[in-house]
């Protein structure tokens, strides 16, 4: 984070944002960590902004960060009805991978994955990116063929990936059930060695701190209740902290997108459903890769604390309550007990749900809209943690220039009208 990158008018310049380092750690340890400065301010909203971003999840915060750092647009507010990172960004199972099938998807997910590689340095914030390797098990002949096709597609565009056989799966995941004596024996796996996980909260916090240091106002506990416009153009937003004028509005509200866009009179190709996850009691290191089993609907990794982090498929019906249903969890756990028999006696400690925004083709929307000055980034559904850096970066370009770049262009809203859908229902078969 260099001082030169910061605009001089930013209310909290680089000089004020202390760099985190081994020295600051040692210095603060000397005082029992009582004097750490706040990572971001809690400002009152100004009357007017050049850009207002609705939703302080990873995607909204990353958009704000790149607007400031890449485009020098700093008169920006991020408005959040709860607390930053408290939506799906703080509820997900943090899997990062780029093994999608279609060209536009590979472009954005691999951009994102590669940005994760040195995001800790970029943000001066340890996001704990752990490219520990990711396996997608193949448990039917059909799945084996489909994943082979995906691995070839990935390699053609330079994404490192390969197919491995059952013996190598067992070598990488000693706790896996590799017998023939089960409903879905393992026939092989797709392997992405640079896939992995990161710390979800840290991604939100790191982007928030970086955006704040560049002058972006992050306003929490402030709900957007209306979008005002004159004719075809946005003029501002009604919020629980009063009216705020805005030249441009970027909606990044995941499962709440239909509701927020409705405030501007637009309907969306989105359905909101609940996706759940759960963690076990902490155990000693047992699995050091991410394993996804799409046929049986479950996936698992182990956190640094030792908890097994488990997820599966989304509930089948619309839901805004952030509470999922028991059968979906039971289904996931059943599948994973057969895949990893040693977990059968583990106690589960916590379970939770997030409301995810599903599109018909299971690909995101990064788009202008029929209303001038209104932009939307949503539809990441069950798999948008992995895409936060890439999505923020290309969405900031779109909002700054009022025109999508090459990567964002494919994800515009008019694809649904033109029949240009980006079908990722296979890559996204199980939530991730």
């Amino acid at each position, binding site marked *: 984070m260099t001082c030169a990158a910061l605009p001089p008018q930013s209310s909290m310049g680089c000089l004020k944002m202390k760099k985190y380092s081994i020295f600051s750690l040692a210095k603060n340890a000397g005082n029992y960590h009582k004097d750490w400065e706040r990572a971001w301010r809690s400002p009152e909203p100004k009357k007017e902004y050049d850009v207002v971003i609705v939703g302080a999840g990873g995607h909204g915060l990353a958009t704000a960060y790149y607007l400031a750092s890449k485009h020098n647009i700093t008169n920006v507010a991020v408005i959040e009805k709860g607390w930053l990172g408290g939506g799906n960004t703080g509820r997900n199972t943090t899997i990062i991978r780029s093994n999608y099938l279609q060209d536009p998807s590979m472009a954005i997910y691999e951009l994102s994955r590669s940005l994760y590689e040195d995001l800790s340095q970029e943000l001066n914030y340890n996001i704990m990116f752990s490219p520990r390797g990711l396996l997608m098990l193949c448990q039917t002949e059909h799945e084996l063929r489909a994943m082979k096709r995906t691995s070839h597609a990935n390699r053609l565009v330079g994404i490192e990936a390969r197919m491995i056989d059952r013996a190598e799966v067992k070598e990488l995941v000693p706790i896996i059930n590799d017998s023939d004596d089960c409903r879905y024996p393992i026939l092989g796996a797709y392997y992405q060695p640079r896939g992995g996980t990161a710390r979800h909260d840290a991604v939100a916090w790191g982007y928030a701190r970086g955006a704040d240091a560049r002058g972006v106002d992050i306003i929490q506990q402030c709900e957007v209740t209306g979008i005002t416009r004159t004719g075809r153009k946005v003029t501002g937003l009604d919020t629980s902290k009063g009216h705020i004028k805005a030249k441009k509005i970027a909606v990044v509200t995941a499962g*709440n997108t*239909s*509701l927020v866009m*409705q405030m501007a009179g637009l*309907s*969306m*190709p*989105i*359905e*909101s459903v609940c996706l759940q996850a759960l963690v076990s009691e902490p155990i000693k290191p047992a699995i050091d890769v991410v394993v996804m089993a799409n046929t049986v609907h479950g996936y698992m990794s182990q956190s640094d604390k030792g908890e097994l982090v488990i997820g599966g498929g989304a509930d*089948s*019906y*619309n*839901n*805004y*309550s952030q509470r999922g*249903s*028991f*059968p979906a969890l039971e289904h996931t756990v059943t599948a994973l007990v057969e895949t990893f028999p040693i977990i059968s006696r583990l106690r589960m400690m916590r379970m939770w749900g997030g409301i995810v925004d599903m*599109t*018909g083709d299971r690909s995101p929307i990064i788009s202008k809209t029929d209303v001038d000055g209104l932009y939307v980034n949503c539809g990441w559904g069950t798999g948008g943690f992995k895409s936060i850096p890439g999505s923020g970066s290309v969405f900031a370009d779109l909002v700054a220039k009022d025109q999508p770049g090459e990567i964002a262009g494919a994800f515009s809203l008019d694809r*649904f*009208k*033109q*029949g240009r859908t980006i079908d990722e229902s296979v890559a996204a078969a199980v939530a991730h």
Partner: protein
Amino acid sequence: MLVITCPVCGVEGEEADFHCGGEGHIARPATENPDGISDDAQRDYMFMRKNPKGVHFERWRCDRGCGKWFHACRDTVSMQIFGYYGITQRPPAALLKKADPLWQAHFEAAKKPSAKKAKS
């Protein structure tokens, strides 16, 4: 977890005994008008969804019972089910009154003769 009663055969079961078929009352434009479907109409049919936060009309199937489809009226926040009606029927007035305003607009629009063709 939802507990659902099939209005066709009367069996009561958990949600896993049923299958959710998503938003109800989505009419296929090609049925009415096989030759002249606009791109907008086809998009709306395929992808656009009301997705209300509140009382919704959706289709369910009695998977492990009689196998028949029916409509349910359910709140997407509280999960409460207010009632059921037949798969070819419109929502009864009492349920429509409870429903999200998007649904009231839907059936208002369907009453107008010009829009009659596009909606169910």
